[in-house]
C-alpha cells in the first residue's frame, strides 16, 4: 500500500481527506504512483502532470523521506520506505512568493 499526500487544492478537487492509499502494481516509481493516482482520481489528470507531455507542472514538487525527488527521472524507483508504506510520497505545491 502506497501512501500519497496531496496539497489542499487537490484534496478538495478529489474530495478526499488526509492521505490517499493506493495499490501500485510492479515497480514503485513516480510514474507508476501517479498513474495509479490518476486512475483512481481522474479529476486530477492534468493538475500534477501535463496532459500531453506527462511532465511535472512547474510549481508542483515531489518529496519523500526528507528528500526532494522533483527532478528525479519518473521511472526511477522510489525509496523503500515509500514502497513499504512506512513513509508517504508527498505531492506539494511549490511556494512561489509570500
Amino acid at each position, binding site marked *: 500500500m502506497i501512501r500519497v499526500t496531496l496539497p489542499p487544492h*487537490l484534496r478538495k478537487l478529489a474530495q478526499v481527506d488526509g492521505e490517499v492509499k493506493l495499490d501500485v502494481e510492479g515497480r514503485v516509481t513516480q510514474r507508476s504512483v501517479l498513474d495509479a493516482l490518476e486512475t483512481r*482520481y*481522474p*479529476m486530477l489528470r492534468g*493538475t500534477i502532470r501535463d496532459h500531453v507531455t506527462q511532465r511535472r507542472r512547474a*510549481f508542483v514538487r515531489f518529496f519523500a523521506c526528507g528528500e526532494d525527488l522533483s527532478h528525479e527521472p519518473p521511472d526511477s524507483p522510489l525509496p523503500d520506505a515509500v514502497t513499504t508504506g512506512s513513509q508517504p510520497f508527498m505531492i506539494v505545491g*511549490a511556494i512561489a512568493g509570500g
Partner: protein
Amino acid sequence: MSGVRVLVGTRKGAFILTSDAKRERWDISGPHFAGWEIYHLKGSPADPNRLYASQTSGWFGQIIQRSDDGGKTWHQPGTPPGEPTTTPEGMPKGESNKFVYDTSAETGKPLTTHQWYDGTPHPWEFKRVWHLEPSLTDPDTVYAGVEDAALFRSTDGGQSWQELSGLRGHGSGPHWQPGAGGMCLHTILLDPKNSNRIFIAISSAGAFRTDDAGKTWQPINRGLHSLYIPNPTAEVGHCVHRIAMNRSRPGVLFMQKHWDVMRSDDAGESWHEISGDLPTDFGFAIDVHAHEPDTIYVVPIKSDSEHFPPDGKLRVYRSRTGGNEWEPLTKGLPQNDCYVNVLRDAMAIDSLDKCGIYFGTTGGQVYASADAGDSWAPIVRDLPAVVSVEVQTLP
C-alpha cells in the same frame, strides 16, 4: 416572477448573487471552488440552469466545472454528481481540462511560435481558459477562449474540447504578442442572426471574425490606431480589451481598446473612434444597453500603468448617442479615494425593463444599477478581487 442571477468570478472563488426583478434584495452563495481563481462563469442562453465555469491555478492548471441546476451543485463534465468518475473499464469519462492545440495533418495547423514580449519567437503553451461562451441554441455546445490565444469548442457539454485551429493558424499567428495579462483570447461574440459568424478578440493581436463557423478567420482591425506598436495601423498587434454588441443589431460593434473607444457599423470591416468627451479613453469593460442599441457603457481608467479611476472617482460613463457624447453616472458610486480597477470581463447587463447593469472591481465590490445606470448600490462589498461578472435574466 422573473429575476436575475449574477455570476461572479474572483481571484479566490466564485459567487452567485440572486434577486427577484426588483433587484433590491440579494441572496449570496459561495465561495464555490474556494481558493482557486475563477476567470469566468457563464450560463447557457438555451438552458439557464446550465452553467460553465473556468477554475484555474498557476500551480495545478485548468479545471472546467459545470452545473446543471443553476449553480447549486457542480461537477467536472463527464463526471455527473454521485457517479463513478471512470467507466467500468477504468477509463475517465471525460477529460474536460484537456486543451491540446490541433496539429493534426487533416485539420490542424503547424504549431509554430508567437512573439514573446521581447519580440523573440516563443512556443505556444496552454495556460488557462479566460472566457467561456455557451452557444445561443445548444446547452452542450460551448466555446472557450484560452491563453496562449486560441479558440476551442466543446459539443458534449464540456467533456472534451477541440481547437478551431483556423484562427491560430491564420497567417499572422507568428506575429501575435502577449499583453500585460498574457496572450489571451478574452472576448467571444456569437452573432444571433448568423450562426456562422463569430467575433473574437485577443490581447495583443486584435479582433478577428469568421463567417464559416470557425474554419477560416480574418483580422478586422482596419481603423484602429495604436501608438504603442511599431506600425500604428498594422493588420494585427492591437491591444483590444473588449468588444460588445446589442443582440438586435449584431453588425454594430463597440470596442474598448487599450486606448480609444471605437465603433464599427459594418461587422468590423472598419472602425472609427467615439471616445469623444470621455475623461480618459483607456479602460477595460464596455457593454451595450439591452433595449437601446445606441446606449453604451464604459468605465474610464487612468493609464499607463496606474489602472485606477481618474481623480479617485469611480464613474461609469454612458453614451445615449452611440458614442462621442458621454455622461458620468455617479449616484451611489464612491466619488473620492477610490482606486480599484474594473477588468474587461467584469461588466454585464440584464434584459429586464429597465435593464440592470452590473460590474465588479478589483477591490471586491459588485455594484448593481436597476435603472440602466442612473443610480447604483453595492450588492456585496468585500469579495476577493473580481475578475468577471455575468448576469442571467431568469423567467
